[in-house]
């Protein structure tokens, strides 16, 4: 089942930022969103993930199939690395965190409190969470922020393995991920023409 967005208009704070966005993401494929800061990549990803409603158009094949990772990693600093992952595994009803830990080279840090990790280690833990969700569509917002070159390679490998298992990934990033088979999707042509914010009629 593929993820499709058809004629999507997404808004941030009531102001449309992208207009008429359409794409399809088939299983086993990756799509990389490109565009300058403020173009609306995050807003588009949050809309696809179902965190905010679309202003117009629709997304299909999303919902319960999506694993979302935003700018924040959603880690609890007073829980250990393993406890953080186990929590998400239980929430998503999956078993075993071992492969996620080793895929992101976190085995040695298993018992460390997440609060004591470096920024890059935290990000790796946040990405390892994707693997324990067991969901087929990864929606990632700047996944490589604060990762070093070696960790970016680990991440690229994890994404490739995910694609190989029939999963798909929708990512926003500014760097070269080292995943040549990914398609690029430039959001710049879809930028909405500035117009006044629509009033939120619920509060009038």
């Amino acid at each position: 089942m593929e993820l499709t967005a058809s004629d999507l208009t997404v808004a941030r704070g009531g102001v449309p930022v992208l207009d008429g966005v359409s794409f399809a993401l088939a299983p086993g494929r990756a799509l990389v969103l490109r565009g300058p800061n403020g173009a609306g990549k995050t807003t588009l990803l949050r809309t696809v993930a179902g965190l905010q409603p679309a202003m117009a158009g629709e997304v299909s094949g999303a919902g319960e199939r999506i694993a979302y990772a935003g700018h924040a990693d959603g880690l609890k600093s007073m829980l250990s690395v393993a406890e953080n992952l186990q929590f998400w595994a239980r929430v998503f009803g999956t078993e075993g965190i071992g492969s996620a830990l080793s895929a992101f080279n976190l085995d040695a840090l298993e018992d460390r409190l997440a609060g004591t990790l470096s920024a890059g280690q935290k990000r790796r833990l946040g990405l390892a969470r994707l693997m324990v969700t067991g969901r087929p569509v990864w929606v990632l917002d700047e996944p490589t922020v604060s990762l070093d070159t070696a960790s970016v390679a680990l991440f690229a490998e994890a994404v490739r393995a995910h694609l190989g298992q029939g999963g798909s990934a929708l990512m926003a990033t500014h760097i070269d991920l080292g995943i040549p088979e990914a398609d690029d999707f430039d959001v710049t042509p879809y930028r909405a023409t500035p117009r006044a914010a629509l009033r939120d009629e619920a509060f009038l």
Partner: protein
Amino acid sequence: MIALLTRDLRLAVRAGGGFGLGLAFFLIVTVLVPFGVGPQTGLLTRIAPGILWIGALLACLLSLDRIFALDWEDGSLDLLATAPLPMEGIVSVKALAHWITTGLPLVLAAPALGVLLNLAGPGYLWLFVSLALGTPALSVIGTFGAALTVGLKRGGLLMSLLVLPLYVPTLIFGAEVARRGAEGLAVQTPLLMLAGISFGVAALLPFASAAVLRINLR
């Protein structure tokens, strides 16, 4: 759901989790009152049920802004919203975790603090019963307030202003049960009203909390 509950309880008892803060606050308020009104045991006996209820209510209010604010700051609330748990379930579990870490210790400690205020003999049982029945309502209403103000920087004061008026019915009937119990009067009517409020808010408010949370996450 159970995973979320155990995580919240575990976080509460770890360093910086705030477990016991509400209880300590309750203790201090109760100790301060006799200093304020003076050593008149008759007067203290009369005001004890009301003071204990207000103390418990304020102690409960103290920890409300932690319910969602911490999860919102570190991004886990976004991730929970995309998880296979229904939002109504998430807010109910959050309210339950808040009651276990804040409300339950207050219920258990209140009879002991009643001694400090010279609470009348039969009042101990009814104070315990009224708090056990009423504090879940405080947690559920508080969760609604926390959901309304999640994402606001320093929204704690605004949340208190929103939540305190909503606490009025619970306070009236809860304190009335404790007062009547202490004076040896029939407690059935306020007890039923209190139970009605608790079960009513526990059944209905999670839907409202989930709705405002979804809007606040946009």
